[in-house]
């Protein structure tokens, strides 16, 4: 994959501690893949003074320490890196996520079916047949913005957000689906629940299950299997691995 000419890319200051590198201005997984690949380049370059990089839909935020590196020097190094060919697109991992779309695990399923004119069974099959791309993580530790949700399920957010969405809730809004890794307030529609921990602060090397650029598919499981899996995950007897042992 080639990074396009550096002049098409906008670099803007975010105060004196971050630079944003914008590859475009829309939600497009080709842009995101470039952001992720470039983020890997910047991290691998180990530029002194760069604190961390944060990939999002179409831009990379490079946090830096202004006492260690000047913004002009950092910008010049970034432009130089943009001018070079990037390594092959980062190989995202593929995941199959067990999710229960039944009973108490799916509080908004009937409502979503009503609003979309589908049966609940159709909502489940439409949601679970599509592989989703991890555009970015944000909002909460480990919360993945997954897309694109099929147009048949597109709904605006709930009129009144819930003050408590349980951890593991699989939710939809607009053309995105996501998983709440921690209990939190939330305004998306809850159509399933997964026993898998999307965020665990004890996993020091990689606390988030997913990374931007990964691919996710939801596999429906019965409520009974959901309960069994939840127990296994809770007891530390089950750890989800990426499909096919890819990197």
């Amino acid at each position: 994959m080639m990074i396009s000419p550096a002049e098409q890319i906008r670099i803007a200051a975010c105060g004196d501690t971050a630079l944003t590198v914008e590859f475009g201005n829309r939600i497009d997984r080709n842009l995101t893949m470039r952001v992720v690949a470039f983020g890997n380049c910047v991290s691998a370059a180990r530029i002194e003074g760069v604190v961390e990089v944060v990939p999002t839909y179409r831009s990379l935020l490079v946090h830096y320490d202004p006492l260690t590196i000047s913004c002009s020097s950092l910008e010049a190094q970034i432009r130089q890196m943009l001018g070079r060919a990037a390594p092959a697109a980062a190989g995202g991992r593929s995941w199959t996520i067990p999710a229960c779309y039944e009973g108490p695990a799916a509080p908004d399923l009937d409502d979503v079916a009503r609003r979309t004119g589908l049966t609940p069974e159709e909502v489940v099959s439409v949601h679970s047949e599509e592989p989703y791309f991890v555009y970015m993580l944000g909002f909460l530790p480990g919360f993945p913005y997954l897309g694109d949700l099929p147009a048949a399920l597109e709904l605006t957010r709930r009129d009144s957000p819930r003050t408590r969405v349980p951890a593991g809730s699989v939710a939809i809004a607009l053309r995105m689906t996501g998983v709440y890794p921690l209990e939190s307030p939330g305004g998306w529609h809850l159509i399933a629940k997964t026993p898998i921990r999307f965020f665990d602060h004890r996993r020091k090397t990689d606390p988030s299950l997913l990374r931007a650029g990964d691919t996710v598919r939801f596999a429906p499981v019965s409520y009974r299997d959901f309960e069994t899996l939840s127990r296994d995950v809770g007891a530390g007897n089950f750890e989800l691995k990426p499909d096919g042992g890819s990197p």
Partner: protein
Amino acid sequence: MTAALAIDAPGLMTTVQDAGRPGYQYAGVPVSGALDTTSFRLTNIVVGNDANEACLEFLFQGPAATVEADSVRLAAGGSGACVELLGGQTVVIGSFQSVRLERGSRFRISPLTEGGVGYLAVQGGLEIGAVLGSRSTYMRGGFGGLEGRALRAGDRVFLAQASAAPGTERYLPIRSLPVPDKFRLVMGPQDDRFTAEGIATLLSGRYKVTTSSDRMGFRLEGPTIEQTAGFDIVSDGIAPGAIQVPGSGQPIVLLADRGTTGGYTKIANVISADLPAFGRLRPGDSVMFEKISREGAEKAAHAHGKNIEELAGLITDVPEGGLSAGGNLDENLLNQNLVSGVFDAHEP
């Protein structure tokens, strides 16, 4: 034998904070850490700690505690925070001044008089495990510090050091830190989404810190900032001090516990040199802004770093016979509270 502070009254939003948890924003983990890093560092230095050692941070009203250690050396600092020794005659130890206390001593932190946030540092630091490389409390995520939450009465905060090291008490002769007349901004990254008038409004208007402010950010109230084409952007990363303008046209300045990403236009960023003073503001305070170049911001960052070194260099022994206390106690401030109000309607 363990050394601890037994918390008799928790104060308001008293949490363990250090320099924060960088390195995991890619996974959506906020940096957290002290709101007013200047006061945080100076308070640590006064007790002989590394500048970024974990402290207790509190808003408006600090904790009251009993010493459960052979002895401790501690100091309060920031926004006029003082240590008041309880039992018998009340003795007040001024801001940024260390004091050695023996087992069984009771003390409280006086209500803050000059700002919204203060620190309590204990020599040797707190015996609290790091989570993802930091002891900072991130309440929304429920991790870091003491069980990921604010302190409660009855908690015991364990200390890394069993007793105070020998030596005289130290203090910083400058008790209160200045708040700039105007907070300096670097414009962008989405200043092109605002009209010239909108930008002029931000740079000339007076804004008040509202009660819908917390460690995530301070919501300001003032003249409405005009945008060109709505407040939605494709979500991107957020730097500390980012000024987000949602549909209301009322700015929000994002601070230590800010989310790593967001979908509102960001008109400007408060520069890093002015952010500690901004974090020290309290509801009702009014602020103004001025624009500087990013090179100017960089110079200011270096000057700020040098200023902290100079302040640290002023820290000196408390003379024999002691010092008169610096704190003016204001009981009215006891009833102030913060409402967690910074919630992004864009978020899931």
